[in-house]
C-alpha cells in the first residue's frame, strides 16, 4: 500500500476567505441592479389615505402615475394642490397628451390593460380630482387605481 500521507501533515489547511468579499459584492450588485429606485422626483406631497378594500397593482410597466397634492416647496409654488406628471408640474389639459405618450410606449395588445394610478394626497379637495377623472374619461383611460395604504379607514377632523 502506498503511503499517501506524510507524517505531520495532519494540520488543517487554512481556508482562504479572500473570495468571500467577491461573493458578497456579487450579491450587493445583484440587489443594486434589481431593486427599482424611485424614477421620479416628487414635487408634491402625496400622503395617501388608508383603506381596507385594496388590491395590489401588478405589471408596473402598464401603470402610469399621476401625482396630485400640495407642492413640497410651499414658499415657491404655494399650497394649492398641483398635478405632477413625470418630473414636472402639469395642468389638467396635459393629461390627454400624457396618456397618449404612455400608450405609445406600450404594445398595442396590452393597451386595454393599462391602468392609471392616482397618487393623491389625503387633504386634496375632490375638485381637481374630478377634473383629472373627467380628462381620463375623455381619452378612454378608464381603469384607475386610487392609490391607498393598507390600514383602517380614518376620517380625520370630522
Amino acid at each position, binding site marked *: 500500500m502506498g503511503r499517501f500521507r506524510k507524517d505531520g501533515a495532519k494540520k488543517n489547511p487554512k481556508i482562504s*476567505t479572500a473570495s468571500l468579499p467577491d461573493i458578497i459584492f456579487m450579491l450587493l450588485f445583484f440587489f443594486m441592479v434589481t431593486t427599482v429606485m424611485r424614477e421620479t422626483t416628487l414635487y408634491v406631497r402625496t400622503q395617501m389615505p388608508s*383603506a381596507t378594500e385594496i388590491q395590489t397593482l401588478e405589471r408596473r410597466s402598464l401603470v402610469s402615475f399621476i401625482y396630485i397634492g400640495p407642492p413640497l416647496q410651499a414658499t415657491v409654488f404655494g399650497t394649492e394642490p398641483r398635478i405632477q406628471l413625470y418630473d414636472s408640474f402639469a395642468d389638467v389639459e396635459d393629461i390627454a397628451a400624457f396618456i397618449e405618450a404612455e400608450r405609445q410606449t406600450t404594445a398595442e395588445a396590452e393597451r386595454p390593460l393599462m391602468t392609471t394610478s392616482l397618487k393623491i394626497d389625503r387633504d386634496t379637495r375632490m375638485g381637481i380630482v374630478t377634473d383629472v377623472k373627467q380628462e381620463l374619461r375623455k381619452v378612454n383611460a378608464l381603469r384607475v387605481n*386610487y392609490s391607498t395604504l393598507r390600514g383602517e379607514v380614518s376620517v380625520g377632523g370630522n
Partner: protein
Amino acid sequence: MARMSPEINAGSMADIAFLLLIFFLVTTTMDVDTGINRMLPPPIDPNAPEPPPVRERNVFVVLVDAQDRLLVEGEPGSVDRLREQAKHFLLNPDNEPNLPVKETIEIDFIGEFDVSRGVISLQNDRGTSYEMYIAVQNELAAAVRELRDEVSRQYFGRRFSELTNEEHVTAVRRAIPMAISEAEPRDIGGRR
C-alpha cells in the same frame, strides 16, 4: 533577501461588503403599489339618446358635501353605518317595495339566483376631501365584497378572494355585481 510583503488579512472585507449589502436591503423600499381599483364610466356620446331612467327604488344615493357630511338616501348618514346600509339595500332581504327589484336568473355553478338590480350612486362635491371620498368608496366596496363573500361561502365554501376557479369567480361576480356608479360631477358647493 527581498522583503516579504506581509499578507493583508482580507477577512474583514467580507464584513464591509455585508454592511453595504444590509444597508441597501434596508434602504431600498420594494414598495408595492396598492389601491382601490375602479372603472370610470365611459365618456358620454352627446348624440346618444338619453338612457332610460333608472327606477328610483333601484338607486341608493350617497351624497358627500363640501364639509364631508354624508347624505344617504335623503338622510344624514355616517361612514360607520354606510356599509350596513349599502348591504341592506343591495340584498333587500324582506323584499320591501322601496328597495331594489330582484331578478331571478340562471347562473352556472350557482343555479337560480335573485340578482339585485340596485345601483349605488355616489356623488361628491368639488369641496369634498379626498380622504372622505376614499373612506366612502372603501365602505361601498367593502359592502359588495362582504356580499360576495357570503355568496361564495354558501356555494363554494370559501371566501371570494380565495376562489381559485375562474368560472366560480365569474359566477359570484354575476350574482353580486359591483354596482357602484359615480354620478356626473356637479358643482354644488362652489369652487374651492
